[in-house]
């Protein structure tokens, strides 16, 4: 039995036994190579799940949909290691109770799918140990190196060209599991804290706000990058912020569920290089 059939029947039995009220996975999309999020409430619906190498989206953003988990019931969800990593961050930030999530884990390597052992969050310590060594896709790594090789002036020009394309659609924020604020700072409008105008300056404001808010929190799933309708390579920003945090605090977001969020905690050994 292939992994798709295996997970279809597991999802179906989770639903029919009443263990979970909903399973979030993938279904066929509008073209042969697209997959779309699919929400199954019955065993029958679980038969429509698709699981293959095109299932790259991080579905964990749906777990924080307003009201979804407030009844205390469990939800099943298809996740890759980057999705598990984002769940760890959400748990560490007290946004999610581990016992409300049942994970149908899978990994994609060289186009091949493998099932990950385990169902509850605690079962994935083996995955967590490997999270630090998960390599970024080669194309992303190349882009990072290209950016690092630029002079500050060139790099600024690069981001200016990119951010001038932004239309403030906030698809990056909506797709991101870590952007869970019920009211994002840019939506706080009594008074309007951040201008809504999408000119280059305003776009810089928005993207820098988001970069700071994700420092040491990004799971590197690439959801923002894929969501951006004008193709701004957003993951390059978060990768750089992640590196800063790693170098300053030896902190790698999402390695475990009991990490203390790095920018919300204090240790007397923290470097104080910025204090004059």
């Amino acid at each position, binding site marked *: 039995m292939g992994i798709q059939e295996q997970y279809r029947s597991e999802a179906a039995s989770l639903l029919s036994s009443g263990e979970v009220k909903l399973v979030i996975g993938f279904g066929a*999309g*509008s*073209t042969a190579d*697209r*997959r*779309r*999020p*699919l*929400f199954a409430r019955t065993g029958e619906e679980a038969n429509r799940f698709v699981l293959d190498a095109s299932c790259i*989206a991080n579905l964990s*953003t*749906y777990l924080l949909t307003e009201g979804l988990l407030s009844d205390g019931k469990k939800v099943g969800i298809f996740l890759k290691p980057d999705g598990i990593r984002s769940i760890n961050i959400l748990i560490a930030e007290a946004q999610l109770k581990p016992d409300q999530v049942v994970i149908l884990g899978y990994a994609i390597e060289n186009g091949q799918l493998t099932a990950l052992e385990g169902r509850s969050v605690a079962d994935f310590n083996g995955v967590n140990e490997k999270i630090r060594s998960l390599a970024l896709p080669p194309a992303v790594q190349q882009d990072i190196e290209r950016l690092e090789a630029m002079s500050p002036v060139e790099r600024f020009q690069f981001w200016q*060209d*990119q951010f001038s*394309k932004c*239309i*403030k*659609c*906030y*698809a990056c*924020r*909506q*797709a991101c599991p870590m952007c869970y604020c019920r009211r994002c700072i840019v*939506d706080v*409008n*009594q008074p*309007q804290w951040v*201008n*809504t*105008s*999408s*000119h280059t300056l*305003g776009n810089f404001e928005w993207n820098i706000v988001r970069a700071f808010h994700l420092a040491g929190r990004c799971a590197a799933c690439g*959801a923002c990058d*894929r*969501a951006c*309708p*004008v*193709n701004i390579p957003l993951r390059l920003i978060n990768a750089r912020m992640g590196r800063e945090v790693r170098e300053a605090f030896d902190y790698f977001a999402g390695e475990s569920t009991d990490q203390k969020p790095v920018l919300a905690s204090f240790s007397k050994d923290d470097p104080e290089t910025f204090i004059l």
Partner: protein
Amino acid sequence: MTRILLKNKLDDCIVTWRNAGYSVLAPVKRNEMGSFSEVQKASDMSLDLILPERTIKDRFFPQTEPMIRYKISKQQIDTETMTPPDTKSVCFGVRPCDAAGLEIDDPLFGWDYKDQYWFKRRNNSVIVTITCTASDDFCMCTSVKLSPESTKGSDVMLRPLSNGNGWQVETITERGKALFDSVSVHLSDEKAETAALAQVPVRFNVEQVMEWLANPTSFESQFWKDIALRCIGCGSCTFLCPTCHCFDIQDEGDTYNGIRRKNWDSCSFANFTMHTSGHNPRNTQSTRWRQRIMHKFNYYRGKFGVNSCSGCGRCTRQCPVDMGITETLQAISNLPR
């Protein structure tokens, strides 16, 4: 007599138009994004794109537009109305769906009040459309009763020649005729065949959709809750749509100095309908998605006699979760009735 514009004469036309004071806008792929940008020469254009990510609408209704500069002092209040510059433009290589989008939006911007920002640009521009010889899985003009050769919103229609060397010129309006009369010496009269048009399948029955939407019981249907489950409520589909036109007015600056701006807004956002009291009449994504569909295929038609969709397919093409108008309308036309 049909006239031909050869590709190798396009530069001459651009020079003539620019010398006559036109800025020439065309699809340009730059920094991984296609949009209508000013070009100096034919080789700047990316005419082989099926559609650029950004629509021509952006050039008439930009994402942020300064309206009034204000200055308040103890003595007085100074305001200065900011209007777009009086530049004439040629929009070259527009697709039929994008051109139609402009005409669809005209009544909205000219209904009780004539929006000077929109109409100043509209009156100063000539839309030169190229018919489509290729389409993708998302194009759906034929589903909304347009086509890869519909002339709605166009001043000139260019039909690609099958030998790939240029276009057959068909002028639609006086404005379009004047523009091409001005480059008459660069046109030729050869006999040439035009390439076959793109075959765009009809993806849903728009009559059935309109009928279902107009039925008062549809408003509270469970259908909306089910279909909108995966919508993450971004502004992609509305901001990339050639017919979406909603905006918000914001003062940028401080109490004493600043600029009042007209900024894009989207019915997908929770803030769109948020009242000052904190009450939100559209407090779920399904009610917002319902608004988008209802507005496009029911309310807009009720008010202006046309549907507010020209079938470009961007809402599906660019949606991060593979939603879009097409799937929803297909589902509506397949509902048991």
